[in-house]
């Protein structure tokens, strides 16, 4: 008789032994720490026996690509929308753009994903409904919808802050100086306003990065992408703790690295911090 289920207790039991999970808890912990420090690993998967680090490394590229694409899209779209809103303050366009975050803030990411899949995947067939395509182009193509979905969750906060930031810059004294000096408004907008408001937005993105990663995990599930997110869900349902720990650890490391990068970027971009040295 076959159990209509997906994993065997016997396999787990034998795996437990090879992994030393039957050792006393103190020894297990020592083993864990030693692995962590020497190999950057949280141990071997109790299901497949492969090391958690390898499993994660296998899945990481897709997730990373997705995160990069999503951040890129989020920044690009937010800049665009915020610029349109700020330069058309209190006009119809501005109101529309301002309503947008209010509406989308309460949209669960899976719901957005489902709607996009139904519309662009199943109905219009513009993008694959899920999975990851072959090769670079296939991969990029199949990640567009998920990236939009993740970006969608970031755009409301970004647009909001960027718009406020731009308005502040637009009202600032130095802009009056530049305007009074007769510099074309296109140049002002692109060279001065954008630059001055991009920095805080980048910082905000740095703060939100862990939300972005979290959103990515859920979105992967909705789009059936075999990245870190689906690894997490399957590991959880199999109680594969080394892998879960590994994912948590590497996510945290990723967040820290990205925050550091953002900080460095802001040091590099902002002369005010340089001036204080």
């Amino acid at each position, binding site marked *: 008789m*076959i159990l209509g289920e997906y*994993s065997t207790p016997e396999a787990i039991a034998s795996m437990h032994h090879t992994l030393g999970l039957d050792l006393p808890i103190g020894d297990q912990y020592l083993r864990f720490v030693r692995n962590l420090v020497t190999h950057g690993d949280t141990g071997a998967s109790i*299901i497949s026996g492969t090391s958690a680090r390898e499993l994660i490394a296998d899945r990481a590229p897709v997730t990373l690509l997705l995160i990069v694409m999503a951040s890129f899209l989020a920044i690009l779209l937010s800049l665009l929308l915020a610029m349109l809103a700020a330069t058309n303050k209190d006009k119809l366009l501005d109101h529309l753009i301002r309503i947008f975050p209010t509406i989308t803030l309460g949209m669960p990411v899976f719901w957005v994903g489902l709607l996009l899949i139904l519309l662009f995947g*199943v109905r219009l067939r513009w993008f694959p409904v899920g*999975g990851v395509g072959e090769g670079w182009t296939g991969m990029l193509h199949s990640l567009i919808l998920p990236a939009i979905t993740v970006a969608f969750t970031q755009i409301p906060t970004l647009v909001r802050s960027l718009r406020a930031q731009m308005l502040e810059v637009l009202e600032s004294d130095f802009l009056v100086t530049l305007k009074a000096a007769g510099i074309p408004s296109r140049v002002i907008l692109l060279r001065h306003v954008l630059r001055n408001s991009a920095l805080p937005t980048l910082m905000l993105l740095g703060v939100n990065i862990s939300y972005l990663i979290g959103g990515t995990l859920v979105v992967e599930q909705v789009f059936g992408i075999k990245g870190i997110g*689906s690894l997490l869900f399957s590991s959880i*349902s199999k109680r594969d703790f080394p892998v879960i720990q590994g994912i948590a650890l590497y996510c945290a490391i990723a967040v820290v690295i990205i925050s550091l990068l953002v900080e460095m970027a802001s040091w590099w971009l902002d002369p005010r911090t340089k001036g204080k040295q």
Partner: protein
Amino acid sequence: SGSNTGSSPNSAASPSQSADGGKPATGGTFTYGRPAAVNSFDLHNQITSNNAFAIDKVFEPLVAFDNKGEIVDWLSKSHNISKDGLTYTFVLRDGLKFSNGTEVTAQDAVFSIERHLKVGGPLAIAAQVVSVKAQDAKTLVITLKEPYTPFISELSNFSNGIIPNNFGGVSEEEFLKKPIGTGPFVVEKWDPAGDVTFTKNTNYWQEGKPYIDKLVYKLIEDDSQAINQLKAGEVDAIESLALQNANELKAGTATAVLTNGSWVTEQLFFNTLDQHFSDVHVRRALALAIDRNGLTQALTFGFAKPANSLLPPAIPYNTNDTIKALNYDVNEAKAELAKSKFPSGFSTKLLIASGNSARAQEAQIIQNAAKSIGINIEIETVELATFRERFFKYDFAAMLNSGQADSPEANSILAFQTDPNGFSKSYWTHYTNEEVTKLLYEGQKTPDGESRGEIYAKLQQILADEVPYIPLYFPDILVGARSSVNGLVVLPNGSLRFEDVQLKK
């Protein structure tokens, strides 16, 4: 007793293939969406479908069942069971080769069965085997200590597939990473937490088959995602299609639903060690309180039959139409409960695994039904691993689960669900009834025929009266596929045969 000559395994082929009669379309990659990854090819140690349905593509048993559930010769050209039911003789097909090109000999079969006997495993060989011998290069003889009628059908199980003697000369571990068998497909690429890619076995004994070049098992955990991918044509078929989605796919022009009855019984299990459910009156009361017809109708959309007895209608010796079951009657249910130790009701918990929406709905129907007679049920949803841990430890009061036969044999289900001494302890209900146990062993020794039927009818009636589990319905095994797919064979255990699949160019 009787012998079986090598009937053609092709009897299972789909009508469309024979219809055009011309040369079959060959080549192409068939992508099959599945909800769980293949994490082991160790046929003797596996029990779950995610692995079973990959193992049976690589390893094949001596005998197999076809899509009607009939036992047919498979790797054996013919087989013979002695009159006393103690000696089994198999003659292997001519020119049978493993995928690496080496000949299959009787010694390989001996090694395979002996390893299974040694390992035991979750699907251990229950017959008392005295010896397994290779009479000559092509003839295998198995001798039993006492008759065991289900033996032949149990041999058709994926766990009795034939592997090369001594693992073909490599270590066990290495072999299981790169398995070699006689099956139509060969593992090319395998991610234990992801996809499996098979290529066609060019040495396959069924001439010219399989028609497709590649078979990909694509992991799609989310069922709505699976359906969407099928609709968008990103996969050619999807496994374990949920019943509630079937009509939608059936209605679509690009998609179709394939089914072939089933060997599955959806059931509500009671822990008979539980303080409440050890009382037979409580169990009977609950059985009377559940409207199985309504439940089936609401949950299965015409893809299931309400269950009266334990054995599915596709299994021989089932008594679904003749049995006297406890049918829906709230008043009688209340009266039954009044006879119990808890006449005014009680509170208890119902354990279910997360991730199965039909079962979650089912649980709510049962919760509602129980409430109508004064039993308060709290639904406890835990993830699958915990779920299994819990019921293996009898740490539940009641749970929803299903029983599925893996061969067309009444014993397959009955032994698993009634034997208090077996691995599963009456499917972890711990139900113990001496009479039932006696009937079970008797049935195993009785050769097929009317008397075996009588034994099983009696057994099933006892189960229906004492309800250690309430059979709810027999769901069809459903597979969603693109309409363009031809020759896909759905077996009643839920596995597919891809040998005859042809992809439209």
